[in-house]
């Protein structure tokens, strides 16, 4: 019998072509342009085409750049850590302790709804809470805990981590909630039946089975924080600027597009690496748990 070629799926191609063209024009080509720029040389007042790695070398040798990069990673790690610390007990409480489905939905929405409010507004809110004329200071002075308003609450890394945790915590809650909800209740009952008290059940059954959700939440939260540049402007202060702010300034006032491009490419590589690692962990998790 003659081997038949599978028929060409024109309809499928047609459906796929629009997003493909979109991705090529608005993602692939711009990234290629930035990649190209990252090898260029700055020649005041503009830049010249070249193929050299000077911009990358500068990032790793000039403390001005690698320290911002490290700080950004530390802030992202802190935000991820605190989000997890708050989101996990919350999601656990929702899934395992709240009996009423209506109350559960309400509490879940209370976390998710802020996502529908403008990001700027949410970040700005913290400015009005933490500022020296802000709500928190007014309260502390009024209650007599402070004699005069303090300015330690705003424009530092503390306010950054606080604001970013607030902004990105829904992305931690959602996957953890989903993972916890998928754990069959009879596993919890079985563990209890086998003589393990509630805390042991949490550690030995619920936590390991919710790890995929934790991993997904941590990845999203870390990557979103890593690329944030608005919170640093609103609540960050002098030692709160992050890598995205540096990139913005390279394209703006510093007028060094090649260096900005190199930084952007580096960021892209870091984020892709994190997603790749997380993906592999997820897969190995799935293989071991089926």
């Amino acid at each position, binding site marked *: 019998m003659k081997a038949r070629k599978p028929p060409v799926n024109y309809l499928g191609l047609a459906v796929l072509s629009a997003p493909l063209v979109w991705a090529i024009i608005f993602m692939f080509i711009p990234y290629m342009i930035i990649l190209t720029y990252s090898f260029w040389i700055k020649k005041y007042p503009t830049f010249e085409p070249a193929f050299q790695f000077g911009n990358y070398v500068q990032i790793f040798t000039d403390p001005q750049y690698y320290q911002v990069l490290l700080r950004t990673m530390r802030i992202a790690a802190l935000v991820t850590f605190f989000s997890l610390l708050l989101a996990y007990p919350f999601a656990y409480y929702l899934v395992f302790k709240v009996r009423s489905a209506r109350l559960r939905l309400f509490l879940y929405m209370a976390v998710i709804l802020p996502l529908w409010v403008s990001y700027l507004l949410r970040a700005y809110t913290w400015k009005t809470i933490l500022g020296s004329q802000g709500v928190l200071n007014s309260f502390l002075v009024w209650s007599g805990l402070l004699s005069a308003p303090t300015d330690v609450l705003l424009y530092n890394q503390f306010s950054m981590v606080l604001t970013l945790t607030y902004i990105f915590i829904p992305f931690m809650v959602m996957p953890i909630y989903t993972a916890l909800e998928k754990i069959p209740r009879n596993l919890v*009952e*079985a563990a*209890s*039946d086998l*003589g393990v008290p509630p805390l042991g059940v949490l550690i030995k*059954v619920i936590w*390991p089975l919710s790890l995929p959700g934790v991993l997904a939440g941590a990845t999203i939260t870390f990557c979103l924080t890593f690329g944030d540049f608005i919170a640093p402007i609103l609540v960050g202060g002098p030692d709160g600027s992050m890598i995205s702010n540096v990139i913005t300034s390279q394209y703006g006032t510093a007028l060094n597009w090649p260096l900005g491009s190199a930084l952007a490419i580096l960021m892209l590589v870091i984020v892709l690496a994190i997603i790749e690692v997380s993906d592999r962990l997820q897969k190995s998790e799935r293989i*071991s*748990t*089926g």
Partner: protein
Amino acid sequence: MKSIIEIDNVSRTFGGKVVAVDNVQLDVAEGEFVTLLGPSGCGKTTLLRMLAGFEMPDQGAVRLDGKDVTFLPPYRRDVNMVFQDYALFPHLTAAKNVAFGLERQKLDRAEIAKQVESALQLVGLSAMAERMPHQLSGGQRQRVALARAIVRRPRVLLLDEPLSALDANLREAMQVELKHLHNKLGITFIMVTHDQTEALVMSDRIVVMHRGRIAQAGTPSDLYDRPASTYVASFVGTSNILEGTIVSMSDGIVFQQEGLTLRCPRLPGFSKGQRAVAAIRPERLRIVAAGAQGVNVIACTVEERLFHGNSVRLRCRLASGDVFLCDRQLNGSRDLGTLPDAGQAVHFAADPDSIALFQEDSR
């Protein structure tokens, strides 16, 4: 015999409306194999879950070995459960699943390993110790669940529809295996099932439940031969249920339905003129010649002949319009030729002592 479990007037209501368990009183002797039997929603699972500690009764007490455990959490009860869909921990190997319940007990590693090994051996799964649950078949998972529960040497083993997820052949093999295991271990088994065959085969005693109450409790043959109600008569095994009137009380009780008169043994509590229900097992009927005279001849028309291999079921229609079943053993399929075919009239005779008479239809 000493009672290991005393269920004392226990009730459980859900959401203030649905009465799942209604005033149940039951003692289970040490080493007994008791089955809670009933259709879904009869309260059997809720009762079992109260023994495990997953549900608390609204009223009454549960005692284990004389000690009140009514409000004791599951992890402090000396009972273990085999769950309906096994509830194996998907992130642990078979051996670690079995070891899970031992890690709380103060045992050293070598001792745990030894007990896990012997429990897996008992259920014939030594070779599968390092497999993950998703690498095991349904029957193997069932065995792991069993090993995980018995390795803790509980006073009572609870089994929640343990065989319902298995296919028919495996289920039959596991019925026998569970029974052997029960004899070998000597611990008390309490099983929940909706499968009456399973209950009849495996149990020392069956507790038939109906709408949260115990309809009847007794040995399998007790229940089969002397059902206490039409509900039990039709749930345990098959029965032809006929409604009619008591027309005479002389010479036994005479029960009459349109075109049908049955003479039954004398029983207390019946009076002439009252409505009553008669139940006859399909296999207790004899086929008699047309026009045969005598008591308890039932005339009907065969509608269908259902071949079961070793037996055949005649599905007939009575003059009253009711369906009437008769089972005949076959000694080879040649016997089929001697039986009436669809569309033919047939006459059955039922001995008086094969008829159970009840006050009302409680199905």
